[in-house]
């Protein structure tokens, strides 16, 4: 009897956790792609209740990677706001939960629904050829957002809208030289992103290009901080112990690592932003707050708010204009008063 009770308790726990799990995934899987897949065969144009006029709405299908970071949430929100508030558009949103197969499924659904345009933020670079060929055969333009794909035939997608990571690295270096003065002797330590990530490789490349052009500026140490606050702090701690007062500037490939490095500098007994110049990339809200507090000097924006540029690209395409293959996202560099002024309007 006792044994039975015990096992029934375990079973209840298993069930309870199971329920909790399914509730979570149900919440996240709130996507149109899945719903639409069930009635894809019968439905040709999506019936919108307010669409009584004669001109047809432009239907956009958007396959998003997921919601793994605040940056991505901001991107999703930007698309939803831009197309949701515009009466001439209708948005079909699909969350792929980090899985390529879900994205491919969503694109096939969009094609069978005969949408007017497809936007895709691809979770990985390869494996898109078949589904993009299907979209091309159906004459639906595909716009890639924030990440690109590797395909043998570039005509498989219409345009790529996203950041130029090399340019971000260059801007970080240029702004640093502007603010510190090009003739000053500056030793820089670099906190790299995750080894092999394209954002890390390109931000390093762009920064190095500019720094190599000035003999006064030297990168003395470079180490990966995995894009995280904890690693950024740990690596910076080690740099400070080995090179200490010899460091005049920190370049972090993202804001989180810079925020970790700032803590390490403070604990070392120096003033970040004053004793050691700190520059990073991304432009998340906590970085702006750090600039306000005088601890971070510069953040180079990596803009997730791609909605307006996507909308413009779709409208241009409809009018028959030729689009650039790479539409670079509008990005800015923030420091000093400009950052403080921008802080209240930062969305992510």
């Amino acid at each position, binding site marked *: 009897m006792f044994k039975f009770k*015990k*096992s029934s308790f*375990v079973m209840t*726990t298993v069930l309870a*956790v199971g329920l909790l*799990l399914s509730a*979570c995934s149900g919440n996240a899987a709130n996507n149109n792609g899945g719903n639409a897949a069930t009635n894809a065969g019968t439905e040709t144009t999506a019936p919108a209740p307010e669409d009584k006029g004669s001109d047809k709405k432009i239907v956009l299908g958007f396959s998003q990677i997921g*919601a*793994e*970071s*605040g940056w991505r*949430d901001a991107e999703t929100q930007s698309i939803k706001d831009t197309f949701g508030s515009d009466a001439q558009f209708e948005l079909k949103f699909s969350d792929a939960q980090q899985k390529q197969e879900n994205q491919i499924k969503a694109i096939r659904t969009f094609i069978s629904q005969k949408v007017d345009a497809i936007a895709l933020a691809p979770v990985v670079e390869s494996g898109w050829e078949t589904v993009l060929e299907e979209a091309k055969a159906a004459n639906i333009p595909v716009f890639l957002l924030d990440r690109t794909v590797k395909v043998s035939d570039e005509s498989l997608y219409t345009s790529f809208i996203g950041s130029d990571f090399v340019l971000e690295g260059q801007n970080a270096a240029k702004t640093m030289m502007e603010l510190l003065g090009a003739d000053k002797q500056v030793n820089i330590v670099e906190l*790299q992103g995750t*080894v*092999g990530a394209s954002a890390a490789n390109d931000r390093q490349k762009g920064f190095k290009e500019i720094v190599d052009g000035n003999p006064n500026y030297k990168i003395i*140490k*470079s*180490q*990966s901080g*995995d*894009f*995280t*606050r*904890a*690693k950024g*702090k*740990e*690596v910076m*701690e*080690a*740099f400070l*112990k*080995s090179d200490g007062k010899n460091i005049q500037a920190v370049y972090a490939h993202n804001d*989180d690592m810079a925020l*970790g490095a700032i*803590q390490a500098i403070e*604990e070392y*007994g120096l003033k970040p932003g004053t004793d050691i110049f700190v520059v990073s990339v991304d432009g998340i809200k*906590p970085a702006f707050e750090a600039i306000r507090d005088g601890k971070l000097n510069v953040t180079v924006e990596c803009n997730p708010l791609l909605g307006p540029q996507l909308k413009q690209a779709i409208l241009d395409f409809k009018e028959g204009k030729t689009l650039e293959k790479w539409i670079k996202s509008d990005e800015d560099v923030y420091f000093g008063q400009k950052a403080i002024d921008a802080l209240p309007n930062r969305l992510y």
Partner: protein
Amino acid sequence: MSSIRKQAASIMHTKIIWPITALAAILLFNLFFVPGFFNIEIKNGHLFGSLIDILNRAAPIMVIAIGMTLVIAKEGIDISVGSVLAIAGAVAISLLGVVPLWMAVVAALIVGVLCGLWNGLLIAYLGIQPMVGTLILMTVGRGIAQLITEGKVLTTDDKAFGFIGKGFFLGLPFSIFIAAFVFLFVLYLKKRTALGLFLEATGTNKISSEYAGVEPRKIYLFVYIVCGLCAAIAGLLVSSNISSADANNAGLWIELDAILAVVIGGTSMRGGRFFLAGTVIGALFIQSLTTTIYSMGVPPERIMVVKAIVVIVVSLMQSDRFRRVFQQKNKQAVAG
């Protein structure tokens, strides 16, 4: 003469000598190749230097590895500790400001105990393989932590909470006192209580200990709970150190470091006797290695290779069979 040699031989046979040798070797390396590594100065009223950093950074690994030692001594393994760490950190930081500090800390620890209880039930009472049983929480745990933090990196400016992971007490990092407390407590359990005897007995031979009247299931459940609790303590240390909870990255892969610390420390993956002091030295060794690599400026893409080589060498040093091959060669050389 011969008694000295005997003593030397008996020291060579204690398990702890090998992790200590490895740690000494890496410190010796630093003495020659990393200038200023041993500098310790007093700054802002506390000790300051690379060695102090290592103590502070090793504390979370140490605490988790102590819990892991108990689990491994039962022929088990707990690969969910990294996720439990993330959950505990997320719970503590999300509760700060809503409830008093002590309640947030206690809540985080309770969550750790619950996670351990879950693992223990799956493994001890449902008979699921430890690797598979804890894999569930390893995968789901990050999701739970994400739900708590709502996918963001939560931050806090609570000074008292920050003290846990970056404060100083008597000139040393406070975190090391927490690690020392956990170590002494578990050591006390092992050496001075009947529980300690049961722990080793069930790990060595489950069936005979069951005949002897020990209830192995309860012991198994107990060690997973302790391991969960240790992970939660480490979660407090990690999240307090950076004053933020990062559901995605906090404690990522720490289970591997912890298992490595246990193995370097001389505890066999096949269960039985366990060596807590060895584990602590193992954890210090791993962190010294990491800090050395950062100070040396090893290119990031090669870090894993360097670590792997060092770990292979240390593991070989520990293998009796490998050492015997060497000893025989020496003898042959002497004879020849």
